[in-house]
């Protein structure tokens, strides 16, 4: 069985793994990890130019926008207004309409504020943005975000940077079943099996940062994640066997001595 390509907002990608560019030891290590992950899309943040050190290493000199599709985020935004302002600046800086919207609620959990997120999504979409949206794993809000025109629904597996995996696989599956746009698990992946689980649930892709950046060997973990996403996708397409309560012998019973 051949897979359909991963398409979001009319753009087609071979890789279903999107990675972040935060928390790495260096931008050079970040670029090596992105290549080892086979990633084609990377999230990036927008921040003030450092006035005290204008010669600071720049992201784009290592993780080039010519090699990777930049997905500007709104990390650190706690209101719809801040998120919209940030992404308008990102569009001016890079010229990209495809963005990752996230509006957070509090520093302790970084849980998405869905009311503000929906408000920001509406404003951005009417302003011509293609919005991939970080959201809670609430199927009702996921549907609302899709209804206003979001290009991808990206529910959390668990809290950002927690590495606790997919805490509510049932909700992720409900969102996958109801959505006509790609569903991407964003946040919470801790290790390769979490990424495979997201794909086995039928997600179109996985987005992660800390699981790779904070691994003892980020390059090796990036490679592990690449394989996990492929394995999970193939397992989903293959269709898993049914679950049984008791053993079912693998070897024939006939001809026993």
């Amino acid at each position, binding site marked *: 069985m051949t897979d359909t390509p991963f398409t979001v907002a009319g753009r087609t990608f071979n890789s279903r793994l999107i990675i*972040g*560019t*935060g*928390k*790495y030891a260096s*931008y050079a290590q*970040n670029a090596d990890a992105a290549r080892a992950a086979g990633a084609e899309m990377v*999230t*990036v*943040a*927008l*921040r*003030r*130019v450092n*006035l005290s050190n*204008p010669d600071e290493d*720049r*992201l*784009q000199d290592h*993780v080039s*926008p010519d090699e990777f599709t*930049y997905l*500007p*985020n709104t*990390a650190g935004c706690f209101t719809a207004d801040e998120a919209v*302002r940030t992404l*308008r*600046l*990102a569009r*001016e*800086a*890079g010229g990209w309409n495809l963005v990752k919207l996230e509006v957070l609620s509090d520093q302790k959990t970084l849980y998405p504020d869905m009311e503000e997120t929906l408000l920001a999504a509406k404003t951005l979409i009417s302003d011509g943005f293609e919005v991939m949206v970080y959201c809670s794993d609430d199927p009702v809000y996921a549907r609302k975000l899709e209804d206003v025109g979001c290009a991808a629904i990206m529910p959390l597996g668990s809290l*950002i*940077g927690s590495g606790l995996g997919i805490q509510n696989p049932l909700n992720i599956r409900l969102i996958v079943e109801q959505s006509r746009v790609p569903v991407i698990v964003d946040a919470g992946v801790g290790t390769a099996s979490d990424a495979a689980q997201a794909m086995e649930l039928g997600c179109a892709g996985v987005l992660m*940062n*800390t699981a790779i950046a904070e691994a003892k060997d980020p390059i090796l973990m990036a490679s592990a994640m690449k394989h996990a996403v492929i394995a999970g996708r193939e397992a989903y397409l293959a269709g898993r066997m049914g679950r049984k309560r008791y053993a079912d012998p693998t070897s024939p019973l006939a001809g026993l001595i």
Partner: protein
Amino acid sequence: MQIILNGESRDVAEGMSVEALVLTLADDPRGVAIERNLEIVPKAEHATTLLEDGDRLEVVQFVGGG
């Protein structure tokens, strides 16, 4: 005259353009966006937009993030 640049007070020459200001901050102005008094200044208008006393400027670029 005084402007507020990325939250810091700074002395700049009278009539300085946004373009001239950006060149003092980054040798490669690609990938940089400017907001002046909460309004984006498009790249095409950097050369013709002159700073005024009390302007609040934000100069931003892409950095690593998740």
